[in-house]
């Protein structure tokens, strides 16, 4: 479980079913799927019949990762090839969702970040979203200089995929941007770059 390094660094308390919700929207990747499956064991069929799952299936490996979800009797199971396509659908879904909808997100941090960021733009209060971190520690990082987002950062420092500066990846996190802050690491002495470590595997 992710420990809070500083107070802007979000923590993810884990999925818990809200049995009072009129409908449920669940966003998971392959690792987060298992968190949802664990929660699904604790609820009745009525809960699952008002639940829509949006699932990023990830690269193929011979098994159908959606199969355990198909067996649940969900109202909807939507499978997406990428997080980007999933978020586009979530955006559309939230725009027609009603009061009483409960949102869940489980998986790696970029997925949770983008679900929360998308939900914020629809007026959802961030603390109302059930979240659980599973899988990789890789991060979305915003370069404070060019404002470009670098996806799937596993090292510190890391190179900005837009302007090319080497960035110190801080724990300072913006929910609105859905990313950690990256700051030029060799601004004072250009070229003085510490060893690159795989901190976020």
């Amino acid at each position, binding site marked *: 479980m992710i420990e809070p390094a500083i107070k802007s660094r979000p923590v993810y308390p884990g999925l818990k079913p809200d049995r009072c919700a009129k409908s449920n929207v669940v966003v998971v990747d392959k690792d987060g799927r298992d968190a949802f499956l664990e929660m699904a064991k604790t609820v009745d069929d009525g809960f699952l019949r008002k639940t829509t799952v949006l699932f990023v299936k990830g690269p193929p490996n011979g098994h159908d990762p959606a199969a355990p979800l198909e067996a649940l009797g969900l109202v909807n199971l939507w499978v997406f090839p990428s997080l980007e396509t999933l978020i586009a659908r979530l955006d559309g879904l939230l725009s027609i969702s009603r009061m009483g909808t409960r949102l869940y997100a489980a998986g790696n941090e970029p997925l949770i970040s983008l679900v929360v960021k998308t939900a914020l733009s629809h007026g959802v209060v961030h603390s109302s979203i059930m979240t659980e971190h599973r899988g990789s520690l890789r991060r979305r990082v915003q370069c404070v*200089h060019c404002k470009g987002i670098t996806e799937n950062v596993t090292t510190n420092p890391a190179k900005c995929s837009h302007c090319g500066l080497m960035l110190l990846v801080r724990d300072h996190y913006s929910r609105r941007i859905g990313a950690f802050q990256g700051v030029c690491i060799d*601004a*004072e002495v250009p070229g003085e770059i510490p060893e690159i470590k795989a901190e976020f595997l």
Partner: protein
Amino acid sequence: MNTMFKDETFRDDFTFSNSPAAIKRFPFPFWEDKYRYSVNIEPHVAGPKGSIYEFPIDIDEHYVADMRDRALVLKEDPLRVQALPHMMLAQWDLLELLMTSMARDYPEHFTLERNGDEWHWINRPLKIENTFRFGNAATLPYEPMEYIMRQCQGDITLLDQRENNLWMDAGIATSQADWSLDFDVGMNFMEWHAPVPLAHQQGVFDRALKFLLALQLGKPVRRLNWTMTINPRLDTSPENYHKWGVDRVTVTPENVGDKVHLRVELQALWRLPRSNAIAFSIRAYLIKLNELVTDLDKARRLHRVLQTIPPELVGYKGITRYLDVTRDWLAKYDDGKPTPVGFLFQ
């Protein structure tokens, strides 16, 4: 104060300097000969004539140059101004607070005529005149916060109050000590202060937040904060850190007095009447050490404060690379004598 506005720069050739009167009124933030963290909030009440506390909003000799620098920053980077949609009422509250204060306290420079919602504003130093309808943003050339903050020294954030917290949901920052408004907009009080070392563990932010949530209309408060800056640069933003960071390795024993500046922020907070938001003003005053050491008490005390600053804060304030050379340079002003008790400025 009898203000003559200086023609000076905060970038490139860095012609900024303080007059003898400005040196005298500089808000030297240390009241004892050692470093100590504290919330140090006090009522923002009127101080002696000519002091930076004489009026709620201090307009000084750097006003015109300061506003010119802000315009340059905004031209390069419009994201230095941000306001979430629900903050429009707080923007108008802020415009009212600043226009009424500035016109009342500096009538030779600013005039505000109000006829119901029809307002007429004149800013003589910047040669600005507008008639607009209070509450109708379409009648101003910018949104209200940006309009007035292009004419008022200091950065500002507007804090929405809900869920027992304060949320930085609007602001303008062109002279900030290395924090990003664009990144921090939408954060709560604990989140935007997250990178500050030591203070969280000491409960400083819990106490400060509790105090500010109870802030009352008409009873503004203030505190002083400080850091150090190389060259009189106002725009020490993280956005441009890859451009100004190199300044920190240019300090030598020969140029300390000219290069190293003490940078003091007068932070003042007002409850706003319509929105119930808080206006949090962060006004930076700069002084180069050559100017500061013209007062031996201040020179001696700064030398002693820099001996006792905790290493975490040295890193956080970004002074690691030039701290030793600065302390060594100040040592010659420390004759071992005692300094007067309390603040060293009026």
